[in-house]
């Protein structure tokens, strides 16, 4: 697999960007020497990429995250080392962008350099089972808002349609129509379809570009 130097995951709030970014970083690390995962989410107070920081560091992946992520401090701050993403081209960088246009706004400061270097993929994460992006109108609106906020156009789609722990094989198969519609409407290819890893085996021969996900652990069981 040829990776672009910068891979960005953006999309609607709660579409699954963080889980995918974490898993994609682990996958990329198998092929690339220097991989960094940057948590640029300034919107979400809980369930951040930082939850997986230990796993990432064990795998040798550099994690860039706000000092305040998952803390008791409600500061939408970004760490200064986010500039390493664009300044140090010896690394492959994965960026977990915050949800919706509000989350994507913070990306804007890096966009001129990302565009100039022109070695990036901007991936739109979609989930058919999220109520505000169930229809094409809803997702089109989100796409337009995010692109306007960060000024970086999407290059492909990640179909992450799921119903959490209740997701069935049928749900994934039926989501392909939706993903194809979004693809046609937005003029973007489908890069991959992501599923929780227990669904990977039964579906891998039926869905092209299937990528298995291990889900981030919750801080406590409930």
């Amino acid at each position, binding site marked *: 697999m040829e990776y672009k130097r910068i891979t960005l995951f953006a999309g609607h709030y*709660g579409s699954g960007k963080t889980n995918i970014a974490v898993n994609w970083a682990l996958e990329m690390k198998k092929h690339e020497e220097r991989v960094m995962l940057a948590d640029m989410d300034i919107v979400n107070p809980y369930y951040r990429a930082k939850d997986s920081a230990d796993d990432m560091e064990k795998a040798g992946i550099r994690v860039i995250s706000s000092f305040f992520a998952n803390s008791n401090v409600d500061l939408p701050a970004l760490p200064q080392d986010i500039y390493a993403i664009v300044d140090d081209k010896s690394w492959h960088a994965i960026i977990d962008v915050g949800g919706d246009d509000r989350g994507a706004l913070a990306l804007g400061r890096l966009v001129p350099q990302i565009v100039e270097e022109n070695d990036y993929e901007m991936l739109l994460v979609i989930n058919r*089972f999220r109520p505000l992006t169930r229809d094409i109108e809803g997702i089109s609106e989100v796409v337009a808002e995010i692109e306007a906020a960060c000024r970086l156009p999407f290059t492909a789609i990640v179909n992450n349609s799921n119903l959490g722990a209740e997701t069935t094989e049928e749900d994934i198969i039926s989501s392909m129509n939706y993903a194809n519609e979004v693809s046609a409407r937005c003029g973007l290819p489908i890069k991959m379809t992501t599923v929780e890893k227990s669904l990977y085996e039964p579906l891998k021969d039926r869905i092209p570009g299937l990528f298995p996900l291990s889900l981030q652990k919750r801080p406590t069981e409930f």
Partner: protein
Amino acid sequence: MSEKVLMKGNEAIAEAALMAGCRHYFGYPITPQTELTAYMAKRLPKMDGVFLQAESEIAAINMVIGVSAAGKRVMTSSSSPGISLKSEGLSYLAGCDLPAFVVNVQRGGPGLGGIQPSQSDYFQATRGAHGDYRTIVLAPDSVQEMVSLTVKGFDLADKYRMTSMLLADGTLGQMMEPVSLDVGEITKYDKPWAATGTKMERPKNIINSLSLIPEELESWNLTRYERYKIVEENEVMYEEYMMDDAEICIVSFGITARVSKNAINEARAKGIKVGMIRPITLWPFPKKVLCEAADKVKAFISVEMSMGQLIEDVELATRCKKPVLLCNRCGGVIPSPQNVMDSILEADKIGGEQ
């Protein structure tokens, strides 16, 4: 709308409120409930509704008073410090006998506290602000129940002309679960008391909480408490879990009830007979079922994310017939199943000594 969708708790409350017929939302963003405000900002303008981000929490609750007085379904939402700011308005709503739906997605306190989850506004929710009044307090333990209790909350508010409060916590607000948005029939209530304009056809409706005559104010309170009595008789909700043969009874609501269920399952595997009574209405509190349980079990455990608030209602309801242990974490920390298990083992010992 029978197909399930994947929603955050905060979003699910907002969507359920829209399905319950709420078209007026006034609020001010605060973590960890902001997604509710954001969802309303997106949806209400498209539904011919009113979304207004007020200049403060105090302004927002007073806008709620105004819309409710006009007979419309209306809500506001916030998190702990924001609810404190709204508390004057909550008392005014009660004094005016106005229905309203209020959401508190709790965070750690006191003061500014933090943004991680908590249940330490239990006293505030169940006891309320100044004056003699009651609030119906609903405590969901899943995103699905956030949907059903939001719809229920609007219904109870209109039915009894009271404020009903959904008392959630940051974890429930932030977590995502599959939900069905099939909420069933929505009951519409006549509101002959609403200030909608007399059209010169009826006497004026005056919405007011001020009385210049002490005896008159007393009589308003007495009448109001007659209504509260009906609520206490008819609207108590709770869930019993493995209580048939239980010797230890956990009492817990919201997210800690889920943690407790994990611990109960583990304890049962070890042969310890433990069950749970989960209050779904924190007011009216399920006193009767707890008092009856006190004659059967050897001990109670109050599992809560506060410094011992729920435990006081458990002790009152059970008339202190049996020891009540406290299993708690606070400040934004969720008890682990192991914390609960430790208390179960302790309760098991105490019972043995008697």
